[in-house]
Structures are given as C-alpha cells and as structure tokens.
C-alpha cells in the first residue's frame, strides 16, 4: 500500500528554495491558487523508496512567521491550521550557507510550532570559497534537528535529503525558545486563559491579528484576550527576535566559523558598476532595450507562424465539416479563432518571463529596485513598481500579479491602478493598422513617421501611468506607513532549469487563466454577430440586389456585411453611435470598440468582418483590411479614417480600460469591486476626453 506524507518547503527568499523544490519534484509539479487569493500554490510529488510518495508544497518565501504580505500570510495560515489538508508532517527549512544566521530565525519559529523540521543548508558548494566551516553534528544536536548539506547547482545532497524526509518520525519536535520567557506575566496569563493550547501558537494568532488582520482559517478565537496595546505587542515581538538571535548566536559561535578574508568581493565589484550613479542607469536602459527588441522583433516569427496556422486551421474546419451549419461556424469562427487569439501571445509572454526570471535569478532585479526607488517614489510608486510596469508592456495580467511583493499597500494599489496604461501587446495590432492607415509614410533623419508614432504611443502610455500615479498619490489617503526593505542577494548565474520552469509555469497560467475569459468572450461575440432579430438579419439575401458584374464572392461579402449591420452586435454599434460620433467614429468602429472591451486584440478581427473582407477574416492579408478601411466613407462621401479620427482612435486605445481579464484580476488582487470599477470609469473617461479633444482640434 502506498501512503503519502505532506512536506512543506519553507524559507527566506533568495535561498534557492525553488531549486530544491525543482530538484525534489522534477517536472512532477503543478501550480494552482490558494482559495480566494491569487498567491501561486506550487506543489509536486517526490518519489521516495518503497512506494512512499511525498507531497511537497513550496510555500511562498518569507523571512519570518510574522507576515507582512499576502504571500507570507499563506505560510502562517497553513501552519496554524492543523486541519488543513496540506498541514505538513514534516517541514523543510531551506537556508543558504551564507545567511545561515538570519535563516535560522525562521527555523526556530517553525520548530516552536512542534513540527518535525529538517534544515537544508543550500549552496554548500560555496562553503570552501567563502571560508565557511560548519560543525554539522553539533548544530544538529543543539537545534534538535537533522541537517542536509545540499547543492542544487552541483546536484549533491538531494538523495540524503530524501532519506531524511522518509525517516521524519525520528526527528525531535523539541522547541527552541521558551515563549514564556519573553514576558512571564503576560504569557502565563495567556496560557491560563487557554489552558489546552500551545502558548506560542496563541501568541502568533494574537500578533497576526494585530499586524495583518487577515487570519481567516484559525482554530483559535483570541479576540477576547486583549491585555496589551499594539505598541506593547510590537515591543514583545522585538524582544522575541532578540531572544531568538541570542539563542542562535550562542550555538553558531561554536558550530560555525567564517574566515572573512576568503570573501571574494564579486558582489562589491559588480555593485560598483551595476548601481553606479551613471553606468547603473545606462546598463539598465540597455537591458530594457534588449527586452523590447526581443518582445517586438524576435517574437514576430513564431507569432506569424501561429497566426497563419490558426487561420488555416479555421479554414480547414470550415472546408472539412462543410454543411455542419451552426456548429461548424461556431468552431471555426468562434472557438478556433478565439484560441488562436490567446495562443498568439505566448511568444511575447514567454520572452518577457524569460528575461524577468533571468534578471531575478541573477540578483540584478534588486539592484534595479534600489536604483529606481527614489525616482518612482516621487510619483507615489515604489522601486518595486518597476517590474510590474515593465511586465505591463506584455500583458497587464501578469503585471498586476507581479505587484504582490510591494509591501506598502498604497504603493501597491497605485501600481495596480496605473499598470493598464502601459502599452500591452494586445494594443499593438490595433496601433499597427491605424498607424498604417492614417500616418503618412516618409521619414525624418532616417526614422520613419510611422515608427516614431508607435514609439510616441509607448511613451504616452508610460507617461500617463506615471502621471496618474502622481495624481492618485495626492488623492488616496491611507493609514498605511511607508515600508520598504529590499534584500540585496548575492549575484549568481541563473540555473537554466529554474528559468525554464518559471517561463513554462507563467505562460501556462496566462493561457489558462486569461485564456478562459478571452475564449468565452470570443464565443459571445460570435453569437452576437451571428444572430439578429427581425427579417433584415434572417433574410439578408432578399435585401441585396444582384448586379450583373458581381462575382459570387463579392455578393457573399455584401450579404455578410448587411447581416452584421442587423445582428445584435450591429444594433449595439448603432445605438452607441451618437456617443462616439464626436470622436470621429461611425457605428462600425463602434462595434469594434464594444468588442474591444472584451479584449483589445479582437478589434482588427472585428473590423475585418465588418468591412466584409471575407469569411475567413482572421489572419487574412492585412493589406486587404487596410484598403477596405481606407476606402470607407460616410454617406456624404467624406472618409471615415482621416488623420483626425485615426489619432483620436489611437488615443482612445492608449488610455481606455478595455480588458475584462485585467478587471477580473484587479478585483481578485484588491479584493473589492471598488478599484476595478474606478479603473474602468476613470481610464475610459480619460480616453474619451483625450480622443474628443484630439478629433475636434485636428478635424
């Protein structure tokens, strides 16, 4: 019979915890969500001997059990809830060899919860080079634990670790610190009030409530026990930290020696360059350029490939299941092109996360945060807002999720609110076609007007994000104090395996999380465009006169266009026409706008259908759509797409909140509808006003 044991991997950020997780589970892992919050829940299976399987849960990195962010809160909530199905039989604390002292703080806290705990000392291959020697036997004895020296880089120690996991029952559960010694009167009265409970657990619940107020799955109700003010509680927490360090330092004095002359100085050499007042910024700028180049240039090839593949797939479905009627159409036009619309973003998302994970793994990202914090703070943001803002150029969804490590709620909220202004990849196809349509060719000092316009739009998006952050910073009043602590980790060469796993996981999350919504919207749109009330829709053929010099293709196109006009979505477009007329758009553009509220990238496809380019519109030659749009006129013969209406449309797309998936993510991350609604109304209002002004001036 096979049985399963629960293992929790716990550790500080930057200790290589994820590497240990990857080494234990290989690709045998999956990422899910904790219920109600969007903290990634990484779990995997590790095969031990004799058919025993260990269920490994990789908990978010944390410096202590006192949570200061949503991610960290997950750890404490799990460890305080013995009834949780993931409650560990054994905990593994991953420490890196250079920061043993600080990592041991968390270790002693976990030990005090009476959970059998294994200490992994990672990056042990660096010990000789850093001049560190450890008396493992002594440390094991004094800390009442088992220690595994692991090097994920050299792939050593993993077998030993697996053996330790298997024999977890032999590990002592003796605690490290007597909680009562922090303040005898207080803790004795606490114990008296809850005689059957562990005093350290009680203490954690009390302080978590005071700090964070978010413990939801607790078994204990300590709300009645209030004998200390928050200020006094914090003083006790500080005392606790001091006591823990006293305990740790006393043991390390015997068990650890560090020959500091052996320190190699790689850190200070690289730091001197990478956070230099001038060179630091130059290097960062060059790295950004490379990332943009990758996202917009290198990704084009796979994207074109995906585009044509899905277009021909849709065509194939239509041809093969010809006569299938509604189902065939739904599959070909709704589902296949819907999925195609998701898959097409994979190359860009993958490239973005490739770079982000390399920058994070190498330790460089913290340097960027350090360099940029002061500048960003002027706008109510944090140095940590930079990563989300850069991610936003691919997609706002991962960008909003990337704000989680900003501890200060106000700075985090502002970042979430302004991130959708950055030019995400979904805006790109819209920009490209409108620019091609209204911006003249030709160039100035070797730079084409069209390329300059595109660049201006990117700068505009970023500028608007910064500007609105500045405004929000003035308006929003929160009680939260500024709070900024960034660890500056050692530089290290990123492990290819870790980078690839991150890229795969993030891409998968995007495809499935955002993909679900995009797919659903595509199907709804298809239905709205394929059905309509009344005779004009259902008997379109009889309304279109046959002219002699018309091919059957042209006639079919005409019928399709007529049907669309009288479909449900056509009716919506007509209804909003008075509203968008001052911006220079007709009802057909209106349909595109409405459809774009699902996801911007459907704009081009929708217009393609509206301007009756042909039935297999998606992936069609863009020139045909462009030509049709260029020739589109109002009844009085004036052109629909002029410089004025084009610029107005570009501005509208630059600023409007047209992405339901982002709104859904913002709701999840802020736990309230208030912020996404504010975003929707605020951004769309800005977009409307800017587009209105632009059109009226340029007209």
């Amino acid at each position, binding site marked *: 019979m096979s049985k399963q044991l629960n293992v929790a991997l716990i550790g500080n950020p930057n200790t290589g915890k994820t590497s240990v997780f990857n080494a234990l589970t290989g690709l045998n892992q999956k990422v899910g969500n904790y219920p109600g919050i969007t903290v990634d829940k990484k779990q995997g299976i590790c095969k031990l001997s004799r058919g025993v399987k260990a269920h490994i849960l990789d908990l978010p990195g944390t*410096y*202590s059990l*006192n949570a*200061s962010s949503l991610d960290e809160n997950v750890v404490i909530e799990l460890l305080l809830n013995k009834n949780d199905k993931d409650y560990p039989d054994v905990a593994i604390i991953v420490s890196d060899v*250079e*920061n043993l*002292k*600080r990592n041991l*703080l968390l270790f002693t806290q976990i030990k005090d919860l009476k959970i059998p705990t294994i200490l992994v000392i990672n990056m042990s291959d660096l010990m000789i080079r850093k001049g560190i020697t450890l008396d493992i036997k002594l440390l094991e004895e004094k800390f009442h634990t088992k220690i595994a020296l692991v090097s994920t880089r050299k792939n050593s120690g993993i077998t030993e670790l697996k053996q330790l996991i298997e024999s977890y029952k032999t590990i002592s559960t003796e605690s490290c610190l007597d909680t009562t010694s922090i303040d005898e009167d207080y803790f004795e009265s606490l114990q008296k009030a809850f005689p059957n409970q562990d005093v350290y657990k009680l203490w954690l619940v009390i302080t978590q409530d005071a*700090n964070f107020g978010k413990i939801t799955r607790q078994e204990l109700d300590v709300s009645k026990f209030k004998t200390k003010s928050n*200020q006094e509680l*914090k*003083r006790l*927490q*500080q005392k606790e*930290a*001091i006591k823990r*360090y006293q305990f740790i330092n006393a043991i390390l004095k015997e068990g650890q020696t560090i020959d500091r002359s052996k320190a190699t100085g790689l*850190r*200070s050499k690289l*730091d001197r360059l990478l*956070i230099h*007042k001038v060179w630091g910024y130059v290097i960062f700028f060059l790295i950004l350029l490379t990332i943009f180049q990758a996202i917009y240039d290198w990704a084009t090839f796979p994207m074109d490939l995906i585009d044509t593949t899905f277009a021909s797939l849709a065509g194939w479905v239509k041809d093969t299941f010809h006569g299938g009627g509604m189902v065939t159409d739904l599959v070909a036009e709704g589902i296949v092109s819907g999925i195609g619309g998701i898959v097409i973003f994979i190359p860009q998302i993958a490239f973005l996360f490739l770079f982000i994970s390399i920058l994070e793994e190498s330790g460089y990202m*913290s340097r960027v*945060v*350090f*360099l940029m*914090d*002061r500048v960003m*703070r002027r706008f109510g943001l944090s*140095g940590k807002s930079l990563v989300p803002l850069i991610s936003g150029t691919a997609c706002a969804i991962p960008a909003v999720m990337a704000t989680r490590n900003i*501890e200060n709620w106000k700075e985090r909220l502002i970042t979430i609110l302004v991130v959708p202004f950055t030019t995400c990849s979904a805006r790109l196809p819209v920009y490209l076609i409108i620019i091609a349509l209204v911006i003249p060719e030709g160039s100035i000092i070797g730079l084409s007007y069209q390329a300059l316009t595109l660049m201006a739009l990117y700068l505009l998006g970023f500028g608007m994000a910064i500007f609105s952050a500045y405004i929000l910073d003035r308006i929003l009043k929160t009680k939260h*104090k*500024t*709070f*900024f*602590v*960034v*660890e*500056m*980790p*050692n530089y290290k060469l990123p492990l290819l395996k870790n980078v690839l796993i991150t890229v795969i996981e993030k891409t998968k999350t995007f495809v499935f999380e955002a993909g679900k919504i995009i797919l659903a919207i595509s199907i709804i749109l298809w239905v709205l465009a394929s059905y309509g009330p009344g005779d004009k829709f259902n008997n379109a053929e009889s309304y279109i006169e046959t002219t002699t010099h018309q091919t059957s293709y042209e006639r079919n196109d005409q019928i399709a266009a007529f049907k669309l006009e009288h479909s449900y979505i056509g009716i919506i477009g007509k209804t909003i026409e008075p509203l968008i007329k001052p911006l220079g758009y007709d009802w057909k553009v209106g349909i595109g706008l409405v459809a774009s509220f699902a996801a911007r990238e459907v704009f081009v496809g929708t217009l393609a259908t509206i301007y009756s380019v042909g039935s297999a519109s998606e992936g069609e030659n863009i020139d045909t759509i462009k030509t049709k749009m260029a020739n589109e006129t109002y009844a009085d013969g004036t052109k629909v797409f002029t410089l004025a209406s084009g610029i107005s449309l570009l501005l509208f797309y630059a600023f409007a909140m047209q992405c339901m998936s982002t709104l859904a993510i913002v709701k999840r991350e802020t736990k309230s509808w208030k912020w996404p609604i504010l975003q929707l109304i605020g951004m769309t209002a800005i977009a409307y006003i800017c587009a209105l002004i632009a059109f009226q001036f340029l007209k």
Partner: protein
Amino acid sequence: MRLTIADLKKGEKGVITDSSSEDIPLKLLEMGCLPGNEVRLLQLAPFADPMYLNVNDSFLAIRKETASLIVIEKIDE
C-alpha cells in the same frame, strides 16, 4: 548628538544601540537590525536614498526615513 544609520557615510560602520521606534517594520528587526549588531553603509543610491547596508550578515536596502529611526554609535576603524 543622536546618531542614526542615516548619518553614516559610505563605507562607515556603526553599532546599533536602539531600534525600538514603533515605525521600524518588524521585518527589518527580524533581518537583524537589533541593538548590538554592527551595521556598515555600503552604497547610496542617487540623492542618498535608499541606503544599501550590511547588517547581521544580511545585505539590504532601506529608505532614508527608516534609516533615520535606527540609533547607532559610530565605530572608527
């Protein structure tokens, strides 16, 4: 005069004497900003903020306003 981490110059060292201000985040204390520990200022970002420190074997960056809450005594080397 009361000296704090914010008064350190690049490369200078001090020993923490008081970090009990209520506005110091607990996380910072747990990373080792506690009385008795040595702190060295490694580097400053432009406008001298944030500050890059080495304390308790940890390397971290904090903002100047937080640094000005942690009282130290300077150590001359």
